[in-house]
């Protein structure tokens, strides 16, 4: 049984800015749960589309009742793949994101399409869809509900992070680059989160479900 979620959002920036900001949104003050972000594949196709794959690692923040599914020693990190296609002719960015591990507990897949708004000038329409499912017998429903609720709260953070990157991009004289001071501030917030984590962590073996 899969929970499906769909919504549309207007972003008050041109598509060009949105797509540029898309690559520059980490780190930001709302993404302390995103630990790493790496491009692991990139290609410009013969019809001039940009294909990219990013690997992200995120913390796995769970409510206490989910601890029973996480015996000590299991990795708290979630590995996420984000594949994307930028079509500069049709002015369309399509992304597909899903988690690589912890999939038995929960699988979250998301598809986003960013395009020029047909209603508003200088506005980008984001259509977002998600498919959330759990394979844990007897608990799939509460896990899916939790997953959906966490997904929604993560999307609020994601939008704040994107808006943050956008507002800095628009204000900058070198529009393709976020200013370093801005990134430093975000970096400090994340450092604090990491330090808190290392202080709390006893040594454990790394395992994956």
């Amino acid at each position: 049984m899969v929970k499906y979620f769909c919504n549309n959002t207007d972003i008050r920036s041109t598509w060009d800015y949105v797509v540029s900001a898309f690559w520059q949104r980490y780190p930001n003050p709302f993404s302390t749960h995103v630990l790493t972000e790496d491009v692991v594949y990139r290609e410009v196709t013969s019809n001039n589309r940009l294909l990219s794959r990013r690997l992200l690692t995120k913390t796995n923040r769970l409510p206490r009742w989910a601890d029973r599914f996480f015996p000590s020693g299991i990795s708290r990190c979630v590995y996420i793949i984000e594949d994307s296609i930028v079509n500069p002719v049709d002015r369309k960015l399509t992304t597909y994101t899903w988690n690589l591990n912890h999939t038995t507990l929960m699988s979250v897949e998301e598809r986003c399409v960013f395009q020029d708004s047909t209603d508003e000038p200088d506005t980008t329409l984001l259509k977002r869809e998600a498919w959330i499912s759990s394979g844990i017998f007897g608990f799939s429903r509460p896990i899916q509900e939790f997953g959906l609720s966490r997904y929604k709260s993560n999307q609020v953070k994601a939008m704040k992070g994107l808006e943050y990157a956008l507002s800095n991009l628009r204000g900058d004289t070198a529009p393709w680059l976020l200013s370093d001071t801005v990134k430093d501030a975000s970096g400090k917030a994340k450092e604090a989160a990491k330090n808190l984590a290392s202080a709390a962590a006893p040594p454990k073996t790394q395992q994956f479900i």
Partner: protein
Amino acid sequence: MFYPYNTLQIWDTVGEACTELKREYDQCFNRWFAEKFLKGDRGEDPCSETFRKYQSCVQKAIKEKDIPVDGVEFMGPNKDKPES
């Protein structure tokens, strides 16, 4: 709510040694993307060398940390979804 990590060293990139290479590549890419790619300029990619160095570092870190990225099909799970 905050849960402790395991001993996996975590930085902005999966490979601690790759931070500077990543930064260099990202800067090159962001400039090329806005100034060339989005404007339809199909000239030579100025970032291929920095990308190669960054990838060499990152792919090594991925292997060392056993991150299961290998062989995952591009947009694989999208295949069974209805058109947006």
